[in-house]
């Protein structure tokens, strides 16, 4: 029998936790991890410390490259998947290489969410998802004296705390959509804003972004619906993360917000699974699909998917609702951990 080739798209917590289980469960199989990022598996929540120079790039790395060699996992970094052919079980890479799999696990993760009404301004926004984003920001940091953060999410609360440490002027434009997907009640929302203010941020709530113009001498002017005009060096867009599945549209996979999978994390195609931020998982009790974004969720789903690829029938549990203590504010969330 031809041995298995498990191809995993992604190199975040979901992909890596899956690879570990697959290697243990199938010592002879080929395992390939493909990521379009050049940097090895790293802690994204530490990016803010990297931006400030408190941590080096190396400090962010979860596991050394040698780990993959020792475990005979082929790590393809800086290689982008541009297409998947589910019929011929082939993954197509941007540099024009085909990789054939026997089982495929998709762990594409999330991408910064930009609400539709703000799409037109995307090119003026700064979002921080990857180490490359962080590196670019870090290089420009000395020239960034003021920042307007639109949206507001758990990532931005932490980022803002870091930016404020540098003496940067930080203004938050928190609209009704803020902290998506968390459901914050008015008290929690007030709590967050008070804490941000106490740190030195200016919080503008109850107002909405209405326009952005780049200024001739660099920087931007942000206008709000209530008529405010804010000048700043940068506009940080933090509206949460959403599944990063655009290129799969048309692949035949069912895509809604994320890749639709059953409770075993299998797509409608045999041998094709999805896990982590990019998966939208069916729950038989809810009779509905759920998406959950967060490090632990990704670790958990990666493991479940791997077990099932190896022949188990483990179900992905609904992420338990936790009381998360973020920056002293307690919010209900699933899987997002205060890292």
């Amino acid at each position, binding site marked *: 029998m031809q041995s298995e080739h498990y191809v995993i798209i992604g190199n975040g917590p979901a992909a890596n936790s899956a690879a570990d289980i697959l290697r243990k469960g199938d010592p002879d199989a080929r395992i390939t991890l493909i990521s379009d990022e*050049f940097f*090895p598996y790293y802690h994204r929540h530490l990016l803010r410390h990297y931006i400030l120079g408190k941590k080096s790039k190396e400090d962010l790395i979860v596991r050394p*490259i040698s780990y*993959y060699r020792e475990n005979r996992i082929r*790590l*393809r*970094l*800086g*290689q982008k998947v541009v297409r998947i052919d589910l019929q011929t079980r082939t993954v*197509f*890479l*941007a*540099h*024009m*290489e*085909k*990789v*054939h799999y026997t089982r495929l696990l998709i762990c594409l993760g999330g991408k910064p969410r930009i609400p539709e009404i703000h799409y037109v301004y995307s090119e003026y926004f700064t979002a921080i998802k990857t180490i490359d984003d962080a590196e670019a920001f870090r290089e420009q940091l000395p020239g960034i004296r003021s920042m307007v953060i639109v949206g507001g999410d758990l990532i931005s609360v932490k980022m803002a705390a870091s930016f404020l440490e540098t003496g940067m002027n930080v203004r938050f434009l928190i609209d009704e959509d803020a902290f998506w997907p968390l459901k914050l009640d008015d008290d929690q929302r007030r709590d967050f804003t008070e804490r941000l203010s106490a740190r030195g941020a200016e919080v503008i709530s109850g107002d909405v972004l209405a326009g952005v113009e780049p200024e001739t001498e660099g920087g931007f002017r942000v206008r709000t619906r209530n008529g405010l005009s804010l000048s700043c060096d940068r506009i940080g867009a933090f509206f949460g993360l959403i599944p990063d599945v655009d290129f799969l549209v048309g692949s035949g996979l069912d895509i809604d917000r994320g890749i639709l999978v059953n409770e075993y994390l299998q797509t409608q195609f045999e041998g094709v699974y999805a896990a982590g931020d990019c998966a939208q998982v069916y729950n038989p009790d809810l009779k509905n699909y759920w998406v959950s974004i967060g490090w632990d969720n990704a670790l958990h789903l990666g493991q479940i998917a791997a077990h099932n690829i190896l022949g188990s029938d483990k179900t992905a549990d609904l992420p338990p609702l936790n009381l998360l203590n973020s920056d002293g504010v307690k919010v209900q969330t699933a899987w997002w951990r205060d890292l």
Partner: protein
Amino acid sequence: MPFRDDIVIKICGSAGDGSISAVDILNRAAALMGYHILNFDSYPAEIRGFGKSVGTTRISRVRPLTPGDRADCLVSLNDPHTITELPTLNESGIVIYENRPGSFLEEDQVIAGFIMPGMTGYGAPLRDLSVTAVQSARSRNIISLGILAGIFRMHPDGFEEAIRIRFSGKKDSVVKSNIKAFHLGRKYALDEIAKRDQIDFGEQLLERPGEISIMSGNEAVAEACIDSRIRLYAGYPITPATRIMEILAKTLPDRDGLTVQTEDEISAIGHVLGAGFAGKRAVTATSGPGLCLMTELINWAVMAEIPAVVIDCQRGGPSTGLPTRTEQSDLNIAVSGGSGDSPRVVLAPTNVEECYTLTRESFEIAESFQAPVIVLLDFFLANRIEDIDSKRLTGEYHGEFPGDLVHSGNEPFKRFKLTESGISPRALPGMAGLLHTVTGLEHDQKGMPDYETKNHRDMTAKRFRKMETLARIWRGSDPFGDDGDLDAGIVSWGSTVGSVMEAIDILRGQGVRAGGLFPRLIWPVQAEQLAAFSRRSRQLFVAEMNYSGQLASLYAINLSRKFGRICGVYAGPVPVQDIVDEILRGLP
């Protein structure tokens, strides 16, 4: 970004991809920018034009002594071939590859898929850019040079000039379209490629006084032969020596000379001895298997005291061995191949410039000492290309038959007269009153066969005395590295010297007092110099590129002490790090 401008670039392709001509242009461009280069191409097949061809060039502000243990940048003009070169790339190396091959290729046929974490890949549409520039894919190599120039910020002027020189015999449109291709590649790199590496030449043009020659060891030998005004080259083609013959076959006819392709190496050396006997400068070049065949007649030259120069471009052996691999394993046969006590001179240049200067000297020595001189190159030295200040390519010329060696005076002519130096008066056939016999048999001072023990003893001693004279008067080789007492003293020879010199620099950087002695006159041994160096060295090593440590064994009797042998056979030049490691292991 830390400035780095000592880099090793490899361009790998299939025959016809133009990787070697791209490296040729790169060499010249870098030299025109004022940098030093060391280029070493390799062809796995015996005959050029089949399979993979890899050009490796090291570009540096400081003269490079080796092609570098590992490459910093690998340019792929053919992915399957280049994939096999990946193990020679640094862990943080850069790969430049075709990113629009026309269709999707199967897994592991594409180099981009092998780029390891820590490495940097830059994809570019080499083929499409080439088609834009020259309406065909044939200038992908030039496009890739443009990409290199763009990414590493190398000054474009040097490239333009180098392209002009490379295509000088071609139509003007060819030159123009290739310059266009270069600029198209460069523009692509500047506009489209986000730099993620540390290499940066800062578009600098360095000052380099005077004219520069870019040549290989073999080319330097041929040039030296021409400048020494040789009258005959006789040889049988053999890798890696053939290039010498190719050049001389073209040039000698215009210079009152002759190139003869003989039926074998025995005939070749026979021709050379005939010319030498007649007082005409002659040379042959060969490799190990050819030298084996020549030993009988080299012996004859020793006995008959005929000047002869034999260039031996060593390759892996024994027998036909490894035609395209470098090795220094012909030392034993060069020094002592043949029957009887058969003293001859063995010279070993350590770089391209010395290939020139020592070849020039070899003729002078052969004629002055009336003996065969073997000059040992090896595949690496014969083929590697360096930039040389042209004014350093000089040598003495005393005429092909030095007049002061002719007999004068009233006593009867003794062609093999016993003298203090061992050197006897010499006459050419046909010189009035200087009739003499020349034979491979032991002979008396007039050349007549004489088997008496005393005569044989005297004559053997005389022949050896010539070597002693040479060892005494020859200029010697300057020691390298630290003065005074050394923690580690390293004796080495030939092309391995470059690696040893770089190893010594590394060791000194680590606080080890290190130095080297690199005899260019390998045989006869300059024993005093060797002994003095040995006395300075607390630990002594002999480094060379052969399995058994041939120089170490040859010099052991002179050294008469404990020393470490650093010897081995490699696919290419000895890696610098291996030498460093061996020495550190050998230190207390």
